[in-house]
């Protein structure tokens, strides 16, 4: 397997301060992801965990091509995007821990990070689901006459969803300021590109819909930034939606539960030789921008930031059980009708009045929550629960969504 679309020429380095900042961001993401993996193994994190290790150049280069007022939408593999966009690692880690101080108050988990203030409009768990959303966000910008551009990221697998073609057509037809970016990491879950897509040059896949494409080397942060930057300029100034393909690779499995039977260790090793952080660090040292000691010190700073994030996440409480029904609707002052009905207890009540529900309802909520203990021991030992297929089972055997 070829290792990507290597840029034909080396891009000049930005100034020393920018170089340092970009390297730091890639390192922070790497250290964050490594620690998240460890926390998953310790059962501090549940559900699915999709790491972007190997894709840091793609993430950091593209996000750096945006203005602060531009919008960004991503997939369920989006910790890196959130951090690159400036979200504090502690809020991301707390979300992964399911804690109340997480960016989504523990409701969404790893796959559903969000930060309105930074215009990071979410990670999404449904493959292809974010493409129409992104075009809609761009529609709003166009409608208001704003200059903002929306960058929508998705994986190679998502190009096979109906929403891909439908969104490309409408974005082109309505001349929306949106850039679609397919992060081609070579696999839709466990299915390799050439086994899931008839057209493997994904940069060409939207041409027939009126969206021109370009390709960048997803392992070269400066190439990503240059190519995405030009696409963003086109979308902003010429109102022409663009598709950018970043050719990259995920060094880890699809999720933490992926046995990776669909690829060889040699393939992974070949890509690891192009590790975007190692390559960029080496260039900075070779060209005298930073010393090796500087690089190592910078890396230690990022590890310390991740340590702090883990401490914060650990100390944060779980959401109050009474908060279960909060925020389903925007209710304003209208609280009289039954917005939600709770039938977990023999005291049916309005969900929005969960806090005022009776004693039995409260006892049962506590009793339900106490079932977190059912499989926690088995999980921490990392042993599958054979008899009833508890959480450990899927951790071992389930790869999750494409």
């Amino acid at each position: 397997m070829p290792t990507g679309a290597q840029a034909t020429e080396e891009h000049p380095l930005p100034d020393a301060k920018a170089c340092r900042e970009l390297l730091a961001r890639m390192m922070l993401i790497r250290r964050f992801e490594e620690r998240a993996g460890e926390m998953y193994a310790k059962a501090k994190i549940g559900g699915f965990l999709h790491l972007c290790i190997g894709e840091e150049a793609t993430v950091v280069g593209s996000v750096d091509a945006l203005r602060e007022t531009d919008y960004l939408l991503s997939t369920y593999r989006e910790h890196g995007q959130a951090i690159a966009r400036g979200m504090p690692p502690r809020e991301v880690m707390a979300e992964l821990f399911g804690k109340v101080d997480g960016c989504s108050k523990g409701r969404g988990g790893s796959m559903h990070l969000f930060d309105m203030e930074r215009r990071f409009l979410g990670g999404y768990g449904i493959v292809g689901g974010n493409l129409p959303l992104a075009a809609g966000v761009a529609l709003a910008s166009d409608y208001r006459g704003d200059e903002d551009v929306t960058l929508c990221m998705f994986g190679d697998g998502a190009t096979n969803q109906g929403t891909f073609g439908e969104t490309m057509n409408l974005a082109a037809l309505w001349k929306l300021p949106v850039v679609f970016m397919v992060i081609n990491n070579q696999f839709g879950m466990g299915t390799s590109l050439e086994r899931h897509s008839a057209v493997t040059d994904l940069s060409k896949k939207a041409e027939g819909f009126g969206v021109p494409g370009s390709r960048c080397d997803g392992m070269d942060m400066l190439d990503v930034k240059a190519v995405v930057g030009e696409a963003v300029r086109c979308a902003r100034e010429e109102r022409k939606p663009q598709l950018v393909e970043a050719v990259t690779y995920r060094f880890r499995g699809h999720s933490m539960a992926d046995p990776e039977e669909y690829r060889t260790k040699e393939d992974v090793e070949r890509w690891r030789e192009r590790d975007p952080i190692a390559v960029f660090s080496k260039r900075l040292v070779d060209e005298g921008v930073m010393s090796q000691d500087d690089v190592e010190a910078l890396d230690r700073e990022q590890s310390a930031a991740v340590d702090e994030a883990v401490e914060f996440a650990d100390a944060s409480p779980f959401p109050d059980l009474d908060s279960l029904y909060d925020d389903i609707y925007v209710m304003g002052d209208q609280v009289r009708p039954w917005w939600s009905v709770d039938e977990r207890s023999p005291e049916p009540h309005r969900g929005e009045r969960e806090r005022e529900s009776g004693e039995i309802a409260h006892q049962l909520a506590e009793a339900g929550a106490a079932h977190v203990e059912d499989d926690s021991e088995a999980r921490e030992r990392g042993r599958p629960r054979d008899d009833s297929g508890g959480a450990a089972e899927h951790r071992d055997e389930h790869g999750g969504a494409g």
Partner: protein
Amino acid sequence: MATMRYREALNAALREEMERDESVFLMGEDIGVFQGAFKVTQGLLEEFGERRVRDTPISENTIVGMGVGSAMAGLRPVVEIMTINFALLAMDQIVNHAAAIRYMFGAQVKVPLVVRMPQGAGHQLGPTHSHSLEAMFLHVPGLLVAVPSTAADAKGLLKAAIRDDNPVIFIEHETLYGRKGEVPDDAEPIPFGEAAIRREGSDVTIVGVSRMAITAERAAESLASEHEIEAEVIDPRTLRPLDLDTILDSVKKTNRAVIVEEGWPHGGVGANLAALIQEQAFDWLDAPVGRVTGADVPMPYSKPLEQAAFPHEEHVVQAVLATFRDL
């Protein structure tokens, strides 16, 4: 009898039906090389080859639609959807096409399609991967809906689903895949529309849907040992066709009914069944029909919130006790 896991029972059903009938084939995301997200299709690619075990792109609506088309043309496709929430992407093909085609074309054609998918909470998969949506499919005339809770039922019902000439929505439960059970060696298909009485009792009827049949059985043990209440536990196994007679006969004997489901309350299986029971057995009821459902919320990720948001045996016990307090 052999002891096997729920996933192994499903695997055996697929294998046996594929051996029996050349027209049976599988399609789905990562069912072949990856061996299935939950390993239900493990080994089948090797055994049957790529013609009959087809890895598909991530294109749910189209995969199901191709299942409908190939079924119309005489094949017996079994489509795997990775999780029930992803089946929502295929609702157009399921509702507008699979369910309606035979009726709207005057019975000139049939759609012998099976769409398999896991549902359920408990693994912190969050608001886009862990709902229980059997009521949505139950709502649609033209579809059959199976909700097996044991390994034996998983095997027997899947065999029946594959042989059935109607489109079947076959709903597995994610937390049951590793659960072991006794499965008859020469497992024959289990006919749709035959409920299983999991436990006999004279004081109250508990109907448990999907995994909640197991939760109901646990609750029944507590009710017997701690409250001297003998509950009859019924697992309907298929929601459409529904073995309403078995449920009504039981209610007429016990005079009380509680329905337990993991899905949402509005328009839920329990709402529907409570209406049917009170319409047809009102005179036998000594208390309002009780129901226990999942919380009326998108499933939260955070572990304690998630566990609090779906029924456990404690909830069922309280619901049953409430039917006695009304006396």
